[in-house]
């Protein structure tokens, strides 16, 4: 398997994968499996389902690799696949009730709540996360989870996938101003959830 340079763009890696370089695909998985998993998890709220859907996202990528055009933006394509699969999954489970953040996770044999797994998945891995109190993190997660679907979707695409508003508009199929408006509402709600915390007051100074 050929070595893949770390500074290669996603699009270059995808083109290489089209030519049969499996190492390029491995690099794409390494880069994007975690953000995709988080995006799917915030949408579906069930870790096991999120894991399966994440795997499906990359399998769709494999199956449709030939259709990828080198001038297209890889992230936009990837998150469009992820979003569509999330919508399909949500439709399938529409008759079921969403798992509450406070409910024990069905897949977790230890009975750990979802909010706990989100709040403290691995304290040493993220500096900014460790800088915030667990209470703040819980509030953030609760605030995001309580967002309407369209606002949460935009918020996740902006904050998790780090996509520009123009690409988010393309993925969601709405205008850029609508995307910004949804993002503004999401941030206002998040601000309301955080304004009582000391960390927020410090950030305001």
């Amino acid at each position, binding site marked *: 398997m050929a070595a893949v340079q770390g500074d290669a763009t996603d699009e270059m890696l995808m*083109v290489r994968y*089209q*030519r049969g370089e*499996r190492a390029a*695909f*491995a690099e794409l*998985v390494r880069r994007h*499996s*975690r*953000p995709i*998993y*988080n995006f799917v*998890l915030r949408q579906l709220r069930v*870790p096991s389902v999120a*894991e399966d859907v*994440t*795997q499906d996202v*990359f*399998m769709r990528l*494999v*199956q449709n*690799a*030939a*259709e990828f055009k*080198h001038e297209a933006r890889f992230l936009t394509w990837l998150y469009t696949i992820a979003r569509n699969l999330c919508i399909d999954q949500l439709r399938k489970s529409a008759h079921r009730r969403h798992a509450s953040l406070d409910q024990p996770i069905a897949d977790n044999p230890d009975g750990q709540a979802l909010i706990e*797994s*989100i*709040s403290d*998945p*691995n304290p040493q*891995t*993220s500096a*900014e*996360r460790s800088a*915030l109190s667990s209470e*703040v*993190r819980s509030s*953030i*997660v609760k*605030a*995001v989870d309580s967002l309407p679907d369209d606002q949460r979707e935009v*918020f*996740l695409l*902006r*904050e*998790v996938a780090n996509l*520009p*508003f123009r690409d988010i508009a393309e993925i969601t199929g709405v205008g850029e101003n609508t995307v*910004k408006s949804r*993002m*503004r509402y999401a*941030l206002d709600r*998040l*601000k309301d959830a*955080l304004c009582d*915390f000391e*960390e*927020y007051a410090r*950030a*305001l100074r």
Partner: protein
Amino acid sequence: MDCEKFDRIVLDLLYDELDELTGAAARRHMEHCTRCRGIGSGLRATREVGVLPLLDAPEGLERKILEAEQRATQLLPFGKRLGRGLSLLAGYAMRPQLSMAALLMLMIGSSLFFLRAQPGDREHVLVTERGVPESDNESVTAVVPKKASPVEAAPEAARAAGRSAPRLDDALARRDRAPEAKADRPMNLQQEPAPAPVATAEARGAGLPGLGADDDKLEEGNADIASDSDASYDAAMSAYRDGRYSEAQRRFGEIANQAGEHAANAALYEVQALRMVSGCPSAAPRFEDVHTRYPGAVGNSAAWQAADCYRSLGELARARQNYDELATDPNYKARASEAIAELDQRAADQESAARKGAGAGAAAKAKPAAASAPAKPAAPAGQ
């Protein structure tokens, strides 16, 4: 910038999606506007604090994905694999270098196509050395200039006849048409090409002298020639027709020396080839020799061509001698008489011109003499 515009761009400012100029304007506006400064600060603080914690992907997810990818690639249906291959090829084909190369090849190909295309049917149009289209044998005969001098006309006629009537039996077949042409065509020694034996049949058809109709013997000989497959004679004839006169002269000379059935004609051809190579001064005595050795049609033809050479050399007396001799032959009588008359006319013209010149010279001589004579002195008045 006003607050309304600031509200529209505040998210772009927050995520650094503004251009530098607009961003600077928004920041200047925030310095002076308390409301907008509060909005901007609140959003920035929210974004700084409200970082959504990311979960690590479950352990083994990447491995599972890669394994699934390997399985999917192995199980990829033929259509998908073909599509992938086509995509790969199309990726290469769409490169600009390949497009330019294809365009270049197309231009070269079309250029070759247009260069190769020639109008008309090339199989039936040949071009002679003079650039005259040679569509058939008759046209070649027609391009022989009538006013060419005997020296120039003979090889042309011979060449043309050689190309147009390579076989004498073909030419003999035309002989039936000869009487009309012979009757209609006036004898003109200045315009008529030399009666080359190579153009025997053509000459007969055109009523040329030298191979007259009376020579049944020669006709039989020609018929024999036509039917004979003598390789050496054909080779010599071929060389003559192709303009290789030295080779033709040598070959005809050999045949003539063998004293076979082609000896007479070969001897005449040999001298004609010599005339092509060396001109009339060398050929004229050889024509006379052939005339002497082969009495009859070939000899008469040689005598005629010798006379032609004499005329071109200015030896009119010797030319007249030959014409006088040929005038005794019924086949040459008319033409020889015309030639003699023309020689007489020319001689008369020359004499007249000479007399005029002499008279004018004498008059001119007399006038200066009178002018130069001293005036007779006047008689003295007293006498």
